[in-house]
C-alpha cells in the first residue's frame, strides 16, 4: 500500500496542474477579462451607497442572522461534543452516533439546506439561520469535541476523586479548560457565517447579501459594488472585534468572567431581536416539502458542472498551496524565530481578505466565472493553509530538532532532517482538508456566477425543479466522501 503513495500524490499533482491550465486563469489578468473589467468599472463608478440608516439596518440584519446561526450551532454543539468526546462519554455507541451526526451536518451544504428551508419557512431570517446553524455544527461540534479531548485529564481525575458525579466533574474540571477553545471556535465560525450569509443572499437570505444580489440582478452595478464594499468593511470590523475577544478569553487576567457574560448576554438579545425568527406554520409543511425533492432529476450537463466545481476547487487548492507552503514554513517560529514575524503578519493579512466577497467582486468585474472564482478561492486557501502549515511545523517535537542541531547542523539542515519529516503528514492532511473546504466553497461561488453546480442549484431553486437539488446533493456528498476516503487512506498508508 505504501508503494502506491507516490503514484497517488503524482496523480493529484497532474490533476491539479491540468485544472489550473484548463481554467484559463490568465484571461482574468490579461486579455478579455481585463478589457471587460475596465468597461465594467466605468459602469460601476462612482459607487452608489444607500443612505446611512439603510446601511446600518442591512448590516445589523446580516450580523444578527450570522450571529444567531452561530449561537444555534454552539447550543447544539456543546452537548453533542460532550457526547462525542471519549473523555466525557464512556459509551461507545453514544460517541459513534454523535460523531455521525456531526459528520452529516458537515456534509450537508448550507446552500442546499437554505433552499430546503426557504421552501418550508418562507422568506425571512429563519431559513438562513437554520441552514447555517445546522451546517455549522459539522465544524463547531467537531472542534468542540477535539477541545474536550485535548483537556488535561488530571483535574478531572482529581475532581472525580473527591466523589463528584460525572456531570459535576465535567462542569468543574473539563469545560473550564475547554472554554477558551470554545469561544475561539465560535468567533471563527461567526466570521465564516458572516461571509456565507452574504453568498446565501443570492438564494434569498436577508441582509446585505440579498441587497447586493438584487442590485446586481437589476444591473445596478454602482449600488452592488458599493454594498460589496460595506460587506468588506463589516468583515474587517468583525475580524478586529473577534481578535480582541479571543485575546480577552485567553488572557490570564481574571475579572473577564462577569463582564464577558454581560456582554455576551446583551449581544445575544440584540441578535435575536435583529434576526426576528419565526417558524410560522413551516413545521407542518415539512413533509410536503420533502416530497418536492423526490425523485431526483438530472439536469442536462450536471456532470460537466460538477467537474467545473471540482476543477475550481483543485486549482484553487494547488495555487493556494504554492503560496502557503513556503509562507507557512517561513512563518513558523521554530524555523525563523525572528524574521518569521513578517510572514506571520502577511498570513494574517491574507486571512483577513474575505474570499467570498472577493469572488463576488472578481466574478462581477471580470465576467469570467470559473477563473475568477478560482482566483478568489486560491487567496482564501493561501490564508487558511498558511496558518495550518505554520501550526503543523511548530507542533513538531523540538527535542528531535535539538538532537540534530547538536550534531552541528545548520538551520535548513535541521529543517529538512527533523522538522519536515515530522510535519509532512499533518501538512498532507491539511492540503486535503483544504480541498474539501474548497469543494464546498466552489459550490457557493457558483451562486454568484462562478459556474459549476452552484449555478445548477440556484437555477433549479428558481424554476422549482427541486429534484435537481437532490441530484447535486448526492453528487457533492460523493465527491466529499471520496476526498475523505483519500485522506484516510493516505494517513493509513503513510503511517
Amino acid at each position: 500500500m505504501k508503494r502506491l503513495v507516490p503514484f497517488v500524490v503524482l496523480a493529484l499533482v497532474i490533476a491539479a496542474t491540468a485544472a489550473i491550465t484548463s481554467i484559463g486563469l490568465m484571461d482574468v489578468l490579461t486579455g478579455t477579462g481585463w478589457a471587460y473589467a475596465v468597461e465594467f468599472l466605468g459602469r460601476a463608478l462612482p459607487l452608489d451607497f444607500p443612505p446611512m440608516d439603510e446601511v446600518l439596518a442591512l448590516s445589523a440584519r446580516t450580523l444578527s442572522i450570522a450571529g444567531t446561526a452561530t449561537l444555534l450551532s454552539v447550543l447544539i454543539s456543546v452537548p453533542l461534543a460532550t457526547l462525542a468526546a471519549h473523555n466525557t462519554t464512556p459509551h461507545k455507541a453514544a460517541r459513534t452516533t454523535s460523531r455521525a451526526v456531526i459528520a452529516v451536518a458537515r456534509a450537508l451544504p448550507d446552500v442546499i439546506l437554505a433552499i430546503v428551508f426557504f421552501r418550508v419557512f418562507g422568506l425571512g431570517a429563519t431559513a438562513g439561520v437554520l441552514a447555517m446553524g445546522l451546517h455549522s455544527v459539522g465544524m463547531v461540534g467537531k472542534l468542540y469535541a477535539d477541545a474536550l479531548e485535548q483537556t488535561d485529564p488530571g483535574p478531572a481525575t482529581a475532581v472525580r476523586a473527591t466523589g463528584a458525579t460525572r456531570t459535576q466533574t465535567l462542569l468543574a474540571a473539563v469545560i473550564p479548560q475547554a472554554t477558551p477553545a470554545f469561544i475561539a471556535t465560535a468567533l471563527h465560525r461567526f466570521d465564516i457565517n458572516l461571509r456565507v450569509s452574504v453568498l446565501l443572499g443570492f438564494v434569498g437570505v436577508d441582509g446585505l447579501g440579498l441587497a447586493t444580489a438584487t442590485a446586481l440582478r437589476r444591473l445596478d452595478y454602482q449600488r452592488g459594488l458599493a454594498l460589496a464594499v460595506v460587506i468588506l468593511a463589516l468583515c474587517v470590523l468583525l475580524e478586529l472585534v473577534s481578535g480582541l475577544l479571543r485575546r480577552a478569553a485567553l488572557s490570564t487576567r481574571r475579572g473577564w468572567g462577569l463582564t464577558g457574560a454581560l456582554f455576551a448576554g446583551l449581544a445575544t438579545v440584540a441578535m435575536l431581536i435583529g434576526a426576528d425568527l419565526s417558524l410560522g406554520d413551516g413545521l407542518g409543511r415539512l413533509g410536503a416539502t420533502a416530497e418536492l425533492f423526490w425523485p431526483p432529476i438530472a439536469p442536462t450537463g450536471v456532470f460537466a458542472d460538477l467537474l467545473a466545481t471540482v476543477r475550481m476547487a483543485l486549482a484553487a487548492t494547488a495555487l493556494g498551496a504554492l503560496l502557503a507552503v513556503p509562507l507557512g514554513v517561513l512563518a513558523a517560529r521554530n524555523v525563523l524565530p525572528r524574521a518569521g514575524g513578517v510572514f506571520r503578519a502577511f498570513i494574517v493579512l491574507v486571512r483577513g481578505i474575505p474570499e467570498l466577497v472577493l469572488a463576488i467582486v472578481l466574478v462581477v468585474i471580470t465576467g469570467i466565472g470559473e477563473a475568477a472564482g478560482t482566483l478568489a478561492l486560491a487567496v482564501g486557501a493561501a490564508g487558511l493553509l498558511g496558518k495550518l502549515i505554520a501550526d503543523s511545523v511548530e507542533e513538531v517535537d523540538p527535542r528531535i530538532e535539538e538532537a540534530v542541531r547538536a550534531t552541528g547542523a545548520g538551520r535548513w539542515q535541521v529543517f529538512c532532517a527533523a522538522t519536515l519529516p515530522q510535519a509532512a503528514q499533518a501538512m498532507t492532511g491539511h492540503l486535503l482538508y483544504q480541498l474539501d473546504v474548497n469543494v464546498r466553497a466552489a459550490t457557493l461561488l457558483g451562486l454568484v456566477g462562478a459556474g459549476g453546480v452552484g449555478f445548477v442549484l440556484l437555477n433549479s431553486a428558481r424554476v422549482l425543479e427541486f429534484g435537481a437539488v437532490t441530484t447535486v446533493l448526492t453528487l457533492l456528498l460523493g465527491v466529499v466522501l471520496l476526498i475523505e476516503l483519500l485522506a484516510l487512506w493516505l494517513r493509513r498508508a503513510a503511517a
Partner: protein
Amino acid sequence: MSVIRFDAVGVRFGADSALDDVSFSIGAGEIVALVGMSGSGKSTLLRQVDALHLPSTGRVTVLDTDTTSAGGRELRALRRRVGFVFQQFHLVGRLSVLENACTGALGRIRGPRLGRVSYPKAVRAQAMAHLERVGLADRAAQRADTLSGGQQQRVAVARALMQDPEILLADEPVASLDPETAVQIMALLREIAEERRLTVLCSLHQVELALSWADRIVGLRAGRIVLDTPATGLGRDEVMAVYSQVGPTLAPIR
C-alpha cells in the same frame, strides 16, 4: 481495625500485570510510605484505594466498602471520604485558587457547578478557611496557574481538606518540586494528618524522605510487595534493595 485492606489483588492492563497478588492492610491513623521504582505499580495501587480503577482479581476493602461489589453511588460516597493529592497537582489552571478548592466539596453538594458564585456561601467560607490553613488565603482570587508548584500543591491539599477526609492518598506529591519545597509540603501533610488523625498512604521515590517521614514503609517491585516494615530502625540500604532489578526476596514482610 483495618481502614484499607487488599486481599490478593491483581491488576492487569491487557497482558501486562501491574499488580500481582498484593495483600496488606492499613489501620486507622497509620502513616505509610509506598516506595518502588517507576513502573512498579505505586500509582495503580493508590488508584485502587480510591476506586478510580477496579482490580482484575482479588478484593479491595476501604472504610468497610468492597470496591468490587459497590455501585456508582457507593463508590462516590467512598471517594468523598478519601482525599487524593497528585504529583502534577491537577488543578484547573484557568480557574481561581478558591474555585479549585471549592471543587473538593462537590461530593456533598448536589448538582453540577460552574463558576465561583455557583458554590454555596458556606462552601466558599470553608474553602477560605482551608486555604488559610495551607497558607494561601491571600492568593484565593488568583488564577491557579499563576502559582508556583509548591503553592499549587498546597491548593490541592486544601481541595482534599474540603472533603473532610478520613484517608489521605498522595501519589508522589513532591516529585515535581525542589527539595526544599518538598520538605515543606511533606511536613504540612504530616501536620494535617496528625491534626485530623488521618490514615495516610503516600508514594514517594526519595528513600530518605520516606524513612524520616513515614511510620511504615511498603516496597513494591514489579507489582509485588517486597518490603513491609516499620520505618523506625530501618536502614537506607534495606530500602534501596527494593530498587534493585533482581535480588533476594527482601526479608521483613510483616
